[in-house]
């Protein structure tokens, strides 16, 4: 409300503010922008390349590429090549092994994250945090070596035990007593590989639980576990889910560790304790050396499927984690 009478009724409009940047700034912006854009271009190229190959294969092989379980390239005497290409078994294998890794790895990570945030004495805590972070730096081929020579004998024994007592649960029964190099063992190795990332995300979320809520719960006479149940879990649950999905993304794409420890068979296997399985990454490693022509394209298509899977999971995970940390719900 102005004290002065305005003669006309036109409301004030903002005026345009312009600036002409100096030459050095224009160069700077130009250089940086081109680099930024080229990152964009490179990825889009990768995605497009893979997508094109992927659709090529589906076009020539049909949707059975995804559903069929056979992968065979045979050349008869006349030099005619027959292709039977299906990643179905490997897709199922990827999911199986990753699922085992999640089921084993996520609870352990949550326990470790809770331990580090709420139970560990201060001196031990810094050492343990460093150790868990160091785990993230271990080369994957190290997990392959250790998994094959150290873990497998023990895990085979555990698998036999589980089979002995729990085989009435369908997942734990086996068609033959062949327990070596099973999805269970591969999943165990993967679980250890994803623990660092799930733990560090969970820990970050737990540590950011608003202090005033924790204090309010303690002031009401709660025990430590009571506080965790009432305040920490409701706050951090979606963050933990996001961390688990990041771990899942890592598990999908893991190659050498799984290749070493898992017995690749082109048939779907739901019995986790039985030594047969596969995943898409191992398929690519196995077949690329002798692949030519259509088979190579098909391998690229398989890689594309893996890429899309991992991409989807990672995107959802990042969304969730960012939500939790931002909102402080």
């Amino acid at each position: 409300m102005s004290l002065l009478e305005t003669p006309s009724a036109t409301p004030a409009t903002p005026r345009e503010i312009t600036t002409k940047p100096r030459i050095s700034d224009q160069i700077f912006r130009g250089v940086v922008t081109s680099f930024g854009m080229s990152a964009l271009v490179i990825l889009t190229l990768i995605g497009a390349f893979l997508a094109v190959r992927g659709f090529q294969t589906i076009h020539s092989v049909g949707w059975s590429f995804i559903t069929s379980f056979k992968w065979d390239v045979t050349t008869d005497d006349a030099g005619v090549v027959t292709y039977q290409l299906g990643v179905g078994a490997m897709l199922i294998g990827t999911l199986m092994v990753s699922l085992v890794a999640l089921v084993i790895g996520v609870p352990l990570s949550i326990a470790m994250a809770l331990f580090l945030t709420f139970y560990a004495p201060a001196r031990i805590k810094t050492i343990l945090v460093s150790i868990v972070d160091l785990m993230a730096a271990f080369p994957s081929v190290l997990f392959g070596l250790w998994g094959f020579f150290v873990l497998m004998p023990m895990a085979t024994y555990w698998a036999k035990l589980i089979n002995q007592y729990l085989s009435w649960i369908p997942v734990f029964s086996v068609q033959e007593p062949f327990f070596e190099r099973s999805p269970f063992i591969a999943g165990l190795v993967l679980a250890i590989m994803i623990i660092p990332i799930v733990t560090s995300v969970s820990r970050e979320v737990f540590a950011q639980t608003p202090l005033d809520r924790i204090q309010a719960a303690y002031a009401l006479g709660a025990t430590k576990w009571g506080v965790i149940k009432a305040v920490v879990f409701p706050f951090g649950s979606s963050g933990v889910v996001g961390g688990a999905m990041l771990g899942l993304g890592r598990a999908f794409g893991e190659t050498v560790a799984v290749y070493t420890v898992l017995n690749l068979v082109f048939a779907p296997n739901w019995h986790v304790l039985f030594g047969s399985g596969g995943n898409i990454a191992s398929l690519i490693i196995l077949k690329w050396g002798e692949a030519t022509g259509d088979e190579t394209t098909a391998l690229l298509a398989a890689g594309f499927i893996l890429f899309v899977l991992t991409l989807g999971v990672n995107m959802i995970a990042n969304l969730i984690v960012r939500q939790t940390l931002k909102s402080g719900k």
Partner: protein
Amino acid sequence: MSTITAVKPQKPWSATPKDISNQVVALIASAIIAGAAVKLTGLSGKLGFFAVFVVSATVAEIVQGVRKFGRKALADNLAASIIYVGAAAVFVPVVSILYMAISKGLAGMHWSLITESMFNASFLDPVDKGGLLHALVGTLYLILISMALSVPMGILTALYLTEIKGPGAKFIQFVVQAMSGVPSVVAGLFIFTSVILITPLKTSAATGALALSVLMIPTVTRTSQEVLLLVPQDLREAGLALGATQWKTVATIVVPAARNGLITATILGVARIAGETAPLIFTIGGADKLNLNPFSDYQSALPFYVWKGLTLGTPESIQRAWTGILILLILVLGLFISARTLGTRKIGK
């Protein structure tokens, strides 16, 4: 009056000697029970001992707790037990991996490791013949070329995202995030089919570095972006208010303030790719001799050396693999630790 402090600070809430001795007694008793259970019943070996030990120690804790504090101690102690066991279960494999790598790796160590390649020896020969010099050189080339490609790209992209925030910034952000999800296998296969098969650049260290850059650029970009965002906005405003151009502000104020973090971002990116195996399988060929030309001819690298030893399967080749992984582990851990120490130093204001 306030100078008389004959009163000593105490912590009456910490565990009394009686509490501690009670706990120790409970643990020893559990160990004895577990040992007895293993001897007398069918439960076998370390697993059985461990399981019985944990169960009886937990029961002892719960009984003590409920007696002193009532019902709610049951859930509290049970949860604490499970959490402790879970944390230990994570800790054990890490220690085991380190122990194995060190003990098995050391067994194959000898000086000629770093002076010879495998040109005159086969992987199947006894371990003291030949070395991994070619792999060391290869890894070095891979790191250098990848850095040359990825660090400028990564940091400049991060600068675009944080300083210029031009059109498409959100999309670039999304794309960088997506890129960090590319499986290493796919990166390798991609370079194989799009570069090696098609362009004049064939299997060599350079193509390997290309594949590794696909993995390294997103890591460097994201970490650099986080670091640049940490530089307080008022620093930038101070520079601009003094009449400096944006380019000068960024170059002389923002980047130096973030310098430690940017170096950390680089080192972490290198640590990530130094240990990658899968992309190399498609792109470097894995030579046995020393190759000083990174742009042509097959090249070896540490992870590839290890992979070769592992897949050949004989005791000698596997021993070589362990030694190789120990060296690689030392390299990667060294990078990691230096990144951490550098990163924890405060950002200079």
